[in-house]
């Protein structure tokens, strides 16, 4: 099994999950509300006339645990669905091998 993770803008969470499902047939995801930044280094807010530099922006971290053969296509689908056309802040996507994946309900070893 392969773990595919993606940091994306929050507005695209459902779009990305739908794209993965459509492209690979894989169902199942964990979503974590995350904050972070890339090259843009955050954003400037205003509060009572003072600028307020927030180093971080709201993001989402998605984790898919997926069959080896589907992972490459999932990454492609995620990258396409997460691209907003903005200058920066669309996030990253990566995958890594995972071992000893157990399905809780059935006890089945998925590899």
């Amino acid at each position, binding site marked *: 099994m392969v773990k595919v993770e993606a940091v994306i803008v929050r507005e695209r969470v459902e779009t990305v999950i739908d794209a993965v499902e459509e492209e690979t047939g894989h169902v199942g995801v964990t979503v974590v509300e995350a904050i972070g930044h890339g090259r843009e280094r955050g954003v400037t807010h205003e509060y009572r006339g003072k600028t*307020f530099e927030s180093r971080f*922006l709201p993001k989402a971290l998605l984790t898919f645990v997926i069959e080896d053969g589907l992972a490459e296509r999932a990454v492609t689908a995620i990258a396409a669905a997460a691209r907003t056309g903005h200058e920066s802040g669309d996030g990253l996507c990566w995958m890594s091998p995972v071992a000893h994946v157990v399905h809780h309900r059935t006890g089945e070893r998925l590899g």
Partner: protein
Amino acid sequence: MTHHQLLIAMNTVWVVVAAVLVMFMQAGFAFLEAGLTRMKNAAHIAGKNILVFGVASLVYWLVGFGLAFGNGNGVLGTHGFAPSVAALLAVGKAPFAAFAGIPGSAGWLFEVVFAGVSLAIVWGAMAERAKLWVYFVFGAVFTVVYSLVSHWIWAPGGWLQRFGMQDFAGSTVVHYQGALAALAGALLLGPRIGKFGHDGRANAIPGHNMPYAVLGTLILWFGWFGFNPGSTLGVATGGHVGFFGYVALTTNLAAAAGGVGGICVAWVVLRKPDVSMMLNGVLAALVAVTAACGFVAPWAAIVIGLVAAGVAVLAVPIVERLGIDDPIGAVAVHGLAGVWGTLATGLFAAPALAATVGVGRGGLLYTGSAYQLAVQALGLIAVGAFTFASSYGSLWTMNRLWGIRVEPHVETAGLDVAEHGMWGYPEFYIPVPGGYGTESHGHVHRHVLPLREPGAAEAA
């Protein structure tokens, strides 16, 4: 003090206290509307109540009060614009002879908070997607429209008042009118992004804080004890001293029936005892009994409240099915319940109470005559046509000239951060200095010195 002066003093104490209660209804709207919408718009939606009450107050001082209650003809008042100190201090004299037992200033205060409530209703259906400047411009336009209609129905000599239209505290004037403008706004803005799926089916967009919505409803219920009983404009009505106590009783009975009825109807029809529908039931009942509260027996107040709750619970999904996105339910709760309350007064008005209040006559149920019901219906048709047309027309014009809806990326990000530069709940989205999950202060400001000099530990 003479007996007459004492009476004026008592009247003024009651009317000013009632006006303050009604003013506090803005707090009710702030919590109700913020609670029933999403977190990303919370500060905007709560805050706009202050903005529009401010706009309404200024416009009402300048022209509204004169149009509504200044001496004039059957259609509008023509005196009392930007009223003078003398006009505001006088009791029962031109240009504000409409107020026989209180000074013009107390009349102004009591009427301006009603204009504020009517305007507050408008934005419920327009929530989460209107541009900020629209609140300024349409707030002023609507205050003028509202003032004209309140002249027709409430000012002595107003053309609907001469027919004897019974609208004790404004089911038509305040709530129906607010809902008509709300409907116009919702139609022109269109639904929020994501409200309707590709197949046209409505999605639920739950409010972010139900306890806020409950608190808002309770504050509105509380404020309604100024709204309805205060509309006696004095402590003695048609020879009954303390008549406002009776009005408070019918108001409370209707609201109680509305809450119980709302949750029961929701349980049966929607299969869940939905909390927000119970709140809608209370508010719809209060809206409906607003016209009737001085004219009906206690049992009728209960019937009016129960039916209003049923109307609201059934109408909210119907409005949605028509493709109208009304986040708070203003069209159902204030519009349809306002129509029901206005008509119900024509059915249930007791002749003795109509004589006490001195407006209109007994309803169909008591007299067998449909006259009062017909007058009520005439008022609804006239106000419906005028207020909807003028609201739709002015909003349509603003939309054509400048656009009244925010850009999609603003709507997606939320009005708080996109329009005002800061979220309503910043710490939910980002770390703030000293906020949850941060060092005590300063780490997000690069110009602030770190707590400890880097390298200091190694040097030591």
